[in-house]
């Protein structure tokens, strides 16, 4: 499924995988949050609340999640969506949309815009002056540093998830080789490691976004 739009191509399968992850996320959250009560929460609600609480506790270091509910809920959305996207690749015949640079770059660019937006919101247009600090000649270095943020965000996530997928594909394809390398046990270990990486990468993307935006909020 590839569409052409002038000089650009659109990968339909990526859109499909993205939307599968989106629907899974939306469905899972809605399902877990059903009948949410302020009393004794059920298992689903507890699970979801622990994610909320975990991210709120992290966020409290840099901003108040009650006041900045937009950013807070955006971070939760990012984490849950990336988590499910990363694990989507472990479902047979599906692929992680995060194993495609187009999604991770789109998110990273959005995060970049978010950082600048929060910087300006907290410090006015004078926020951009910090690129020339501590003195003007450092401007190019500061700019490179700033641009490296979305770049590393996009490539870190993309690379990690892609490697997991490729390796899982290899385990599936070269069965004989893996039989000699440990067979089921080796495959299982790799499977566990991939699951671990999936969680960690979703977490890292979310935490770095939080840290970058928090730094922009606190910038002199």
């Amino acid at each position, binding site marked *: 499924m590839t569409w052409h739009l002038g000089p650009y191509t659109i990968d339909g399968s990526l859109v499909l995988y993205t*939307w599968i992850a989106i629907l899974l996320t939306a469905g899972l*959250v809605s399902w877990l949050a059903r009948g949410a009560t*302020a*009393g004794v929460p059920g298992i689903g*609600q507890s699970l979801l*609340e622990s994610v*909320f609480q975990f991210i709120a506790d992290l966020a409290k270091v840099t901003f108040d999640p009650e006041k900045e509910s937009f950013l807070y809920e955006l971070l939760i959305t990012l984490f*849950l969506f990336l988590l499910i996207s990363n694990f989507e690749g472990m479902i047979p015949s599906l692929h992680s949309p995060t194993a495609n640079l*187009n999604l991770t770059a789109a998110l990273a660019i959005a995060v970049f815009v978010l950082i600048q937006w929060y910087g300006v919101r907290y410090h006015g247009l004078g926020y951009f002056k910090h690129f020339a600090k501590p003195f003007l000649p450092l401007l190019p270095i500061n700019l490179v540093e700033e641009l490296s943020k979305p770049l590393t965000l996009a490539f870190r996530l993309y690379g990690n998830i892609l490697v997991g997928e490729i390796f899982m594909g290899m385990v599936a394809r070269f069965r004989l080789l893996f039989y000699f390398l440990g067979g089921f046990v080796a495959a299982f270990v790799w499977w566990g490691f991939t699951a671990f990486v999936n969680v960690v990468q979703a977490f890292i993307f979310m935490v770095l976004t939080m840290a970058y935006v928090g730094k922009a909020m606190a910038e002199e």
Partner: protein
Amino acid sequence: MISLSWPQLLIELISVLLLFAFLRAKAFPPIVKAMRDRQERIRSDLETAEARRKEAEAMKAALEAEVRSVRERADQVLARAKKDAEDQARAILEEAQRESKRILAEAEVEIRRQREEVLSSLRAQIVEISLSVAEKILRERLDSQADRRLVDEFVERIEVPQ
């Protein structure tokens, strides 16, 4: 796979933003509200408990003060009762002493009166005896009226030892 295409980026971004919009509008509010409500409830419960504790402490202090005042009052009543009893005992004693003195004085008066009585009767008898003796002696010479006066004067002059 590494080729970037701007329309693709846009589609991905819009898709994820749609997810965010949905979650923020529909799925998150119940959870956020439940957590906030629970927090609020726990806070109000703690505040209520604190208020109750303070109330109980105040009540305890009031009761202790009450007990102290009651005990003080009881001590006062006891002390007064003791003092009253002592006063009464002293009064009774004094009364008894007074009574005994009075009885003693009365007895003395009575004794003196009786002695007077005895003495005067003695005197009369002496007069009688003296007269009868004198009569016997002076029967012929003296009339008895004048003699009696004479003897009476004599007897008056007799000193009676006290």
